């Protein structure tokens, strides 16, 4: 009880501190600074009509590289801990509905995920949500199976190769143009076509492969090695 009231007082103090410095000037009307530059010159500089993808991959590609490193270290730590410390637990056999669904749906879900990744510069999406959708298809296969699929080695290989591809694509920009991750090393094409926007589709593919294999590796490590489930 004391802890609850103290927590409430701290939260109210935090709220008062935050709300007292917000400028209540009214609704924003204009873009300022970097946002206005991206809105005006984004399509002309990079060739991708999705401004958010052009910011994530081309203008702020270095931040995305850092984020890829964070995701890599977190997923490696999770897989490492779970392979060294057995967590036990007894899985139950998947029911008939789950088994049948896990045979039909993962193909369509993977196809949708690949669509989101490859059309990242044309419509909302990009590497990150597409990779997560492909990982959820892998999760469906895991949930409907009776034994652990032995794909852990290939997942690690795909993840490492995708990360390497991201770095190499960035350095290609340095080699050709003197700028890391400049999207003009490949021809820009006409905005709105699938083959356009320079290097952005390739980087989206690398990011999508990396995120998908990392999340799939984390889901696969939730099942201990050699664990099988008795049919009921």
């Amino acid at each position, binding site marked *: 009880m004391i802890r609850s009231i103290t927590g*409430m007082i701290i*939260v109210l103090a935090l709220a008062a501190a935050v709300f007292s410095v917000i400028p209540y000037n009214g609704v924003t009307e204009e873009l300022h600074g970097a946002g206005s530059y991206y809105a005006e010159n*984004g399509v002309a500089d990079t060739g991708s009509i999705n*401004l*958010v993808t052009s910011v994530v991959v081309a203008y702020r590609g270095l931040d995305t590289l850092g984020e890829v490193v964070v*995701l890599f270290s*977190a*997923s490696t730590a999770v897989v490492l801990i779970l392979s060294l410390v057995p967590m036990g637990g007894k899985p139950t056999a998947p029911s008939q509905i789950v088994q049948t669904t896990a045979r039909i749906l993962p193909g369509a879900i993977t196809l949708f995920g690949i669509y989101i990744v490859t059309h990242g510069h044309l419509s*909302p999406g990009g590497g*990150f949500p597409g990779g997560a959708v492909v990982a959820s298809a892998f999760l469906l296969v895991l949930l409907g199976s009776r034994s652990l699929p032995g794909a852990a080695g290939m997942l690690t290989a795909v993840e490492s190769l995708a990360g390497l591809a991201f770095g190499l694509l960035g350095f290609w920009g340095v080699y050709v143009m003197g700028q890391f991750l400049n999207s003009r090393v490949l021809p820009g094409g006409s905005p709105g076509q699938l083959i356009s926007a320079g290097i952005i589709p390739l980087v989206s593919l690398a990011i999508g492969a990396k995120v998908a294999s990392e999340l799939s590796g984390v889901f696969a490590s939730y099942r201990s090695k050699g664990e099988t489930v008795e049919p009921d």
Partner: protein
Amino acid sequence: MNPTEIFYWSLAATAAGLVLTGVWGVLTRKNILRIALAFTLADTGVNLLLVWSGFIPGRSAPIMDPTVTSVVDPLPQALVLTSIVIGVAVAALFVVVGVLAARKSGSADVRRMKELRW
């Protein structure tokens, strides 16, 4: 207050309310998984606040179709894309280390986890 202003400020109030709820949950809950859930709530609130900071009512999404004339700010949306993925990575690590600590000390109560003290 016309409807546009109500829309604008209610979004900010929702996001701020979620952040405060998450902070309160981290401070007062005892189960280690509930602390992780409260952290995820606070993270969602912060992401909402960041996207709200770039929102301009009346403009459209930052996909430059030929029919689009004015767009909202794409920079906070790009940053929040990164932030969501990092949030799930931190949640995964939080839950795994929490399960490890709970197994070691025998219960999921943070008051029992003696190694966390000085």
